[in-house]
């Protein structure tokens, strides 16, 4: 027993003691590379593209920037253990990663306790920067609240009164529905919600859900399902004529991760948030798309964009900090401004450590057998945020 443990520990030590490039600055990246491969792979490729550009241009503080990628199996406890490993043994200077919100929250709490900087790139949960926010956690993507508010704004313009919602039965889905309801009610108090459907995540019984919504006879539908749930819902609902004559608002539905697998069955006419990479005007946004396609031979997903901007943010913060201790990096992220990212000027505000990355909204159409967003628009998050006072009230005292 002891022998076994000793051998194991020795083997572990040997694995990790492999000589790293002495002149690199290392960043720990923890993600669900296997469990959510469809999302994590484009994200990783986005990071790698940014790294090759950054290091090609001389790196950061004269050193190469290097990411250490680790798989947490989608388990928060495992992620926390890996974070400890990265910070205490691998010599990383800060942590980033996670797609799932709950894993992000676990790392965030750990980072705050130990005084490590954590950049949550993908997780959407509002609580990450608000009710569970802390000084060491920064977040890149526009949160659930903001994206739902953008859809609610559009919905309020129509004369639909009766709404049905369908969302996966977990925190993200529940937050997304609550945010949509709150924003829509504020803009248009007379709306009512006649059906709320809560399929289990990735276990949707799409036929039954479509029937249940049809029975409530709503004027419009708000959809939060994604991935395989979305594909099944679109199919069963489309076959049964559920979407005929109804406006549908789809959170994240226009993101290539979810839209591409639908092919020519993409639901036309839905108003969605997403990423119209195929249609961007000349500028840093289109440059990124071209560079990404050159480097990988694939079309970008929104994860690719987020990964790319994650590495850009970190490089900028390190450059601004001029040092690699946690306190300097944390301070550098505060009010950090980065010019010429694919979405324009990126800014991390000091109020709640949230970046100003917004979202693309538009209407779905099918072109050449593929779903695309048309009449789209990029919206900055600021007008959709709660007031500064409300945010301060939500954030725990520092």
């Amino acid at each position, binding site marked *: *027993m002891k022998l076994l443990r000793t051998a194991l520990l020795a083997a572990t030590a040997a694995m990790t003691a492999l000589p790293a490039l002495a002149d690199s600055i290392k960043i720990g990246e923890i993600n669900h590379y296997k469990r959510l491969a469809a999302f994590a792979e484009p994200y990783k490729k986005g990071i790698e593209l940014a790294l090759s550009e950054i290091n090609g241009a001389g790196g950061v503080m004269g050193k190469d920037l290097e990411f250490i990628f680790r798989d947490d199996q989608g388990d928060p406890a495992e992620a926390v253990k890996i974070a400890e490993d990265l910070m205490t043994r691998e010599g990383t200077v800060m942590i980033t990663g996670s797609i799932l919100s709950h894993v992000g929250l676990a790392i965030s709490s750990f980072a705050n306790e130990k005084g490590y900087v954590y950049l949550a790139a993908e997780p959407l949960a509002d609580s990450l920067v608000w009710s569970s926010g802390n000084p060491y956690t920064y977040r890149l993507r526009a949160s659930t609240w903001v994206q739902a508010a953008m859809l609610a704004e559009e919905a309020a313009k129509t004369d639909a009164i009766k709404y049905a919602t369908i969302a996966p039965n977990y925190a993200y889905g529940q937050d997304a529905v609550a945010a949509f309801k709150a924003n829509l009610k504020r803009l248009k108090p007379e709306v009512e919600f006649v059906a709320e459907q809560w399929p289990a995540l990735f276990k949707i019984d799409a*036929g039954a859900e479509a029937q249940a919504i049809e029975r409530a006879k709503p004027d419009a539908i708000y959809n939060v399902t994604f991935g395989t749930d979305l594909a099944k819902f679109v199919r069963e609902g489309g076959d049964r004529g559920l979407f005929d004559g109804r406006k549908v608002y789809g959170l994240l539905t226009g993101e290539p991760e979810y839209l591409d697998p639908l092919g020519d069955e993409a639901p036309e006419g839905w108003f969605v948030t997403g990423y119209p990479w195929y249609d961007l005007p000349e500028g840093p946004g289109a440059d990124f798309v071209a560079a990404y396609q050159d480097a990988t031979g694939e079309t970008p997903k929104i994860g690719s964009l987020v990964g790319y901007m994650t590495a850009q943010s970190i490089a900028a913060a390190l450059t601004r900090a001029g040092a690699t201790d946690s306190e300097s990096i944390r301070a550098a992220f505060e009010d950090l401004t980065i010019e010429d990212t694919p979405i324009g000027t990126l800014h991390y505000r000091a109020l709640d450590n949230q970046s100003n990355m917004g979202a693309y909204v538009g209407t779905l159409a099918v072109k050449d057998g593929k779903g695309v967003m048309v009449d789209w628009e990029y919206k900055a998050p600021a007008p959709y945020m709660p007031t500064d006072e409300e945010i301060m009230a939500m954030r725990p005292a520092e």
Partner: protein
Amino acid sequence: MAFFLAQILTGLANAAALFLVASGLSLIFGVTRIVNFAHGSFYMLGAFVGVTLMDILPGHVGFWGAILLTGLAVGLIGAFVEIVVLRPVYRAPELFQLVATFGVILVIQDLALMIWGAEDRLGPRAPGLRGVWRIFGEPVPKYDIVLIAITPVILFALWYLITRTRMGTLVRAATQDREMVGALGVNQAWLFTGVFALGSALAGLGGALQLPKGGADLLMDFNIIGSVFVVVVIGGMGSLPGAFIAAVIISVLNVFGVAYLPQSTLVLMYVVMAVVLIVRPYGLLGREEVAGEHGQVGAPERPIRPYGARGRMVVIALLAALALLPLVADKFILTLMIDVIVFALFAASLHFILGSGGLVSFGHAAFFGGGAYAAALLVFHTDTPMELAFIAAPFAAGLLALGIGWFCIRLSGVYFAMLTLAFSQLVWSLAFQWRSVTRGDDGLVNIWPADWLNATAPFYYFTLAMGVGGILFLRHIIHAPFGYALRAGRDSPRQAEAMGINVKRVQFAAFAVAGAMAGLAGGIFVFSKGSVFPTELEIAASFDVLIVVFLGGVKTLAGGVVGAAFLTGVEDWLTRLEYWRLILGLLIIAVVIIAPEGIVGSLRTLWVRIRHIEEEEAK
């Protein structure tokens, strides 16, 4: 009325794929007694192979031909898995094979990722069957009607195969008495292979048939396995008509649940399973398990004795080494060791009821997570001091175990296991859905230890004291009269009762003790990680610990502890690699084949053999 009819039709269509997959699992279990966790993987393979074939083969013939070919292909894969992985371990202790099937899951997951890539595939439409027919004005997809028509045909074909053919006769005979069939000259090995291949083919067919309603993705193996087990258990393990009835009941109830209780989607089927098992302990059409199945397979077990002087010296030396570890090791080694000790205590608690009590629990994570949540809730909502909250963990988990055990303990074998699974799902859904208290899957965060413990080394000593204390406590019970009574009940309930032991009450008490110790591990866990999420209560967490106990060796004292240390260490090392699931899966399969008594059990056997050789040479 039309709405009801449409709903029932939707339910029946959903039942088709579920029945196919479940009938395969039921068949495999009935004959080989293998609880095949990898059955969902064959379903996933069916979906991917089906998509690929349908891309190549055009038109009507291509579509239906692709489905049949998929069944054939997945059946062949199943036969291969059976011959290579399972055949060497049939003689191992009961249920040990499930560890091997767990390895198969990991291997297939990574192979599927390598072959088909990460992106979800939308299934092709069945040619000519796009759109709906209107029945009393309600739209019903054409393909649904086809599925509803196909299912009874397959049920009939299976029924014919089982009741009217020679192969079926042999299968039924083997279900009733495997050894007798072997004694009568039937080649058991090929019979098992055939049944396993047939079961896998059915799962593959199910995967291919559902394509027009869904698609192929890398999560579908785990996503279906829960409902498949539920169907098989409700129907009665090994009963095909039972599986059919259960698939229909579950699917139709689900559809009505969606319409009238939309929030119920997470737990409905587990509630149904719990109710069915409480009312009918062997499922709707199942038969009572043959008594005394446990412990019959393999060589007679040697009585477990406390360690001798030499064993104690080794343990003391090990503990001393662990106590001195903070002087030499860096912070991360200590963090890793905390994980190892927590997992070892968790595994030891399951090992206690599994090894000594013969109670296989599929839901042990309920107590680990329950303890963790109890402590976290106290800290989060009432700012209870860490010391108090920590003590609450084992008590809360023990109480939970008393509650759950009261229902479960009257069952035995796989039915007991499945009822514990149902209850652990209920606990999970409580943590998941009761957001005002538990924050759902946002989890409870910022649960850190008191200041005097809030550094790696002090917390390591705290963990060491609590973990080792808990493990020694469990071992002490095993060697106390209570432990002997527990083992008597496991080996021969009837004789134990005759001696005046109230077997069920002893098992009930043991179940509560195991729950409390799992809760203790959960209490340490939550303060070491600073947060707790419903993931700790998931089925996967229960299976992890089960795998570890089997891997270490059920019929040994140290099995759980060694298995936990082995898996934690290996995982920490392997997850740094790209295809770690493939390697881990192959490693688990290799361990299972090389050491069918578990790591400790096989080392012990080896040790005994060497010593015998030495003795003989000395003579």
